[in-house]
């Protein structure tokens, strides 16, 4: 039991080392110090890429925990709640209306749009019969589909399809270099914020009655959760594109093992998300070396296998 964190830490460290070492350019261990070109590759490309993957994986997985506790349903993730598409819609809107606005304005607009999309999703979910567990993810997929097609249609009309494609297509990290990923730190900060409020989200998952009985203002917690999910989704979608499955499967696997005591489980969820995404990114870099397969494609395959296993796994006892 106590060896688990140690093993997990070692695996994550090994992944990081591998990620720093593997790429089109060969970098041997210990080469960084002496060689200037190697150091440049490391600092300008490999390190930013590795950090971007870690931040994205961790933040998306934590956002998954949050949205699952907001809707009290394990079969949703930040990528199946219409949040990412709404962010893309917001970004497209600001790009059309005020193309010259600075990047931080664009991010705020994207986040606000993502929040509106998430709010719409929550409002729909509240009207669904509680027992129909599968209606919630279906509603999310339909909403994502509708908003996604609105984005595509507007982009088509405005001749911005290529621009939009990078957000809605499966995400990838090959374009990440220093100076082009730093906004993801904000997504990481949002995940940390969720950890501070972990008890509140855990209590919210107990149901409105219990939460109110314990004196928790459920509306305040809902709002905080929406901010976390929206900021994470908006920043991830606009920096690296849609990353599927991380926010769905990682919280599920961790809940199987550790349960829903979020204060204890959120750090594990974050590490798991970071590790899974980094592993998939590495696979994408290795399989057709020196070419790359986008991490979203790898995740689509691995994630759906894990998800099917979660759906059909034998019921656990004890």
């Amino acid at each position, binding site marked *: 039991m106590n060896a688990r964190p140690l093993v997990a830490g070692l695996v994550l460290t090994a992944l990081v080392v591998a990620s720093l070492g593997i790429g089109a350019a060969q970098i041997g261990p210990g080469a960084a110090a002496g060689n200037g070109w190697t150091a440049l590759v490391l600092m300008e490309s490999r390190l930013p890429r590795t950090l971007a993957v870690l931040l994205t994986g961790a933040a998306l997985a934590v956002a998954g925990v949050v949205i699952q506790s907001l809707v009290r349903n394990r079969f949703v993730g930040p990528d199946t709640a219409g949040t990412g598409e709404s962010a893309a819609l917001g970004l497209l809107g600001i790009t059309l209306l005020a193309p010259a606005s600075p990047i931080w304005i664009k991010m705020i607009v994207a986040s606000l749009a993502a929040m509106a999309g998430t709010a719409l999703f929550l409002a729909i979910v509240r009207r669904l019969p509680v027992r129909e567990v599968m209606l919630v993810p279906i509603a999310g997929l339909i909403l994502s589909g509708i908003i996604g097609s609105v984005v595509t249609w507007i982009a088509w009309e405005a001749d911005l399809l290529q621009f939009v494609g990078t957000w809605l297509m499966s995400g990838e990290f090959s374009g990440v270099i220093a100076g082009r990923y730093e906004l993801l730190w904000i997504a990481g900060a949002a995940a940390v914020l969720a950890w501070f409020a972990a*008890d509140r989200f*855990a209590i919210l998952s*107990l149901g409105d009655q219990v939460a109110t009985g*314990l*004196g928790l203002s459920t509306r305040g917690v809902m709002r905080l959760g929406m901010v976390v999910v929206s900021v994470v989704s908006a920043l991830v979608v606009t920096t690296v594109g849609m990353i599927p499955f991380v926010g769905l499967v990682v919280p599920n696997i961790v809940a199987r093992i550790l349960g829903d005591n979020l204060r204890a489980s959120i750090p594990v969820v974050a590490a798991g998300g970071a590790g899974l995404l980094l592993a998939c990114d590495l696979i994408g870099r290795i399989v057709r070396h020196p070419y790359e397969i986008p991490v979203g494609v790898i995740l689509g395959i691995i994630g759906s296998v894990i998800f099917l296993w979660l759906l059909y796994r034998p019921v656990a006892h004890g």
Partner: protein
Amino acid sequence: MIRINGLSHHIGAAPILHDIDLTLPRGKLVALIGPNGAGKSTLLRLVARLEPVQQGRIEIDGLDLSTTPTERLALAMAVMGQQTHIASRLRVAELVGFGRWPHHHGRPRPADRAAVRQALAAFDLEPLAHRFLDEVSGGQAQRAHLAMTFAQGTDWLLLDEPLNNLDMAHSRTLMARLADLVRGSGRSVVTVVHEVNYAAAWADHIVAMKDGRIVAEGPPETVLTEPVLSALYDTPIEVSRHDDRPLVLHHHWHDQLGSPFPKAADAPSHLLH
């Protein structure tokens, strides 16, 4: 003291509660009885601020429900609703631990840990403390939920049919524990009881509801009588005595079991209305 004045409630156009005035005494075990759909749960949910008051006023120990912050009320009353199913995958001890959350908001102190241990012990949950809620029986989960409510350590305890999933032994233990809480530590309990004999045996004060109104109120001796109960449940009911308390014989009526059983010779006709 809980004071309820002019409380009415509607769901859609349907009236559920009609202009209720009621005072629930402090330091008593109060049982709320009445047929299905009488409005017991609704009344309890309104008092517990689980639903907003539409019309009327509720005050608990001088705190007006409409103006007191919900965190403050969580220190005055703990509530367990009728639907206790929890979908979260929590360990029993973790759920009970959340009962202390109103006191520490995330930073439990030794006193909080002691209260959790006590609550676990009080409900025989120590052997199950590290089991997940979805891996224990319905009755055990219900006891975990009750233990969480106990751990909250409030002056008032509001419970909606807490005996629902409990077996005989645990039902009796729970009622004894509630009575003990009232007589030993001066706390106040309001509980909806489905099986009137638990009210007969343990309650200090009984409130009978029907069709959204209070129809009778008082000590068991005055409420648990044949005329009151028969009218309350619209069915003839006989009341006997056991250990100097009323014992309600409601399980069958004499001639329903067929010929080998004697007809009640003198079934009072006014009960059959």
